[in-house]
């Protein structure tokens, strides 16, 4: 649940393909634990890996995982390199103009600030965020100086090195980091951003969207989605 819309290039160059294919390719970033990351075995792992596999099973689809850079994740969806984005992408109006979203599979959750000490100035200081995220958009408007990084872990490294006073990101992404690193702590108030996380689907792929919507609903109904959320501690539950 990070991230805002990509550049105009994505919209201008959008491409795609028909649905009828047998294999549904799922695109993810693979660098956003616990949502999606590459494990020691070199495979994509995390909350969205398990969720995606389960959704495909329920929708009776054969799915394959594809890793793609965050910066080009929307252009490559509309360009037809894969059929759905499952990458912790928050549902926002800007993105919704370019692609479609399934219903959200995590509720809208707050973003949090993490810094080395309590006294940092969140309004006027230097705050790090990943490029093209809803958090980056928020900081840009908040009056603080925004420093952007192309990967999530670089934003953390910037705070640790003192380059940025604080980082703004999804609470669920920051929590395991703060837990494991004594140097860092949550600071300031939480910020409510975005409309929950959903799968990104091409606008012309209504049929695929419906299949995933049905599967997501069935996981919401039988409680298995809440179990997965609890297991990976990615957000609050439904």
């Amino acid at each position, binding site marked *: 649940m990070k991230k805002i819309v990509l550049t105009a290039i994505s919209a201008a160059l959008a491409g795609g393909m028909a649905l009828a294919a047998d294999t549904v390719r799922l695109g993810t970033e693979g660098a956003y*634990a616990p949502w999606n990351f590459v*494990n*020691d*075995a070199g495979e994509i792992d995390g909350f969205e890996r398990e969720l995606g596999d389960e959704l495909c099973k329920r929708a009776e689809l054969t799915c394959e995982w594809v890793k793609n850079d965050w910066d080009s994740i929307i252009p490559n969806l509309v360009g037809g390199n894969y059929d759905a984005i499952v990458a912790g992408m928050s549902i926002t109006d800007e993105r919704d103009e370019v692609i479609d979203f399934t219903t959200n599979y995590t509720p809208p959750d707050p973003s949090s600030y993490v810094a080395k000490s309590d006294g940092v100035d969140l309004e006027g200081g230097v705050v790090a965020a990943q490029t093209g995220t809803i958090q980056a958009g928020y900081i840009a408007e908040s009056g603080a100086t925004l420093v952007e990084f192309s990967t999530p872990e670089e934003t953390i490294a910037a705070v640790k090195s003192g380059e940025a006073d604080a980082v703004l990101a999804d609470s669920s992404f920051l929590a395991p980091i703060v837990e494991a690193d004594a140097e860092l702590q949550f600071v300031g108030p939480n910020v409510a951003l975005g409309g929950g996380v959903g799968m990104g689907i091409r606008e012309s792929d209504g049929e695929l969207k419906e299949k995933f919507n049905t599967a997501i609903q069935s996981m919401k109904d039988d409680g298995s989605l809440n179990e997965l959320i609890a297991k990976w501690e990615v957000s609050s539950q439904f």
Partner: protein
Amino acid sequence: MFSFCTNPETLDSLRWLACYTTTPKHANLYVSVVVVLVLLAITAPTALGFGFAGATAARSRILPLRWLGKAYISIVRGVPDIAFFMFFVIALDQAIEWVRHQVVCPDWDEPIRQGNDFIVCAAAKMPLSQAPQWVHETYGFFLAVLTFAIVFGAFAANVLYGAMNAVPRGQIETAEAYGMTRRQSFWRILVPQMWVYAIPGLSNLWMVLTKATPLLFLLGVEDIVYWARELGAWANPNFTAYPHDDWRMWYFLVLLAFYLGLTRVSEIVLERLMTRLSKGQATTGGEVLRKAAA
């Protein structure tokens, strides 16, 4: 990988490192080294081919061909690489699919462009979406090779164009006096002699190319810089058996050594090539060789 790797927490540092550097995740880094080297090995000659064709076209006597050559050189050189990578590759991919769509699905009645989306029938997808992942990766790899070749070919074309013009006019005049046709004097006199003027410019291009591979990730091809950054980043003990601090500095030091090594090897090869090509040339380099031999 090793039998003692089952419980990494209990290992001493040397064994830990041995286990850590042999995880399947780490193997991605080694694979990417091979991918980058193969890419360079294929791209360099292809780009040189594009460059040669471009330079030859730019100095052709046929006007439209000359326009084509000059347009290629100036347009591609003028567009930023990153824009070219974003635009050209997607456009090329769509062009291929559009052609396949026309051939494979002639009775398709929906429009191909629907808003943002570009829709062709499933049978026209390139590669087919049920194809295994390696097919997609190979396809992406060759799109990358082609794009690199076109971009660097334009620069190479300009270098070769200059080199062709640098060959002393007297050489061509002599060839004409011997009764050689334009074609003969081009292949027998001009081309063999121009390389000595082209090598310094081409070697610059080669060096830039070796360092341009991070652009590959825009196309979904993961290069060494990507993996060095990913693997070097602080590893959270919650999600890996091999937690560590931010080691990007060490990874980038290894990258530095890799690139310096590559540069050194390239320099040695290019220097030898230059010596070889200077032999018998009426250039300062050729004169030095002549004196040394005498």
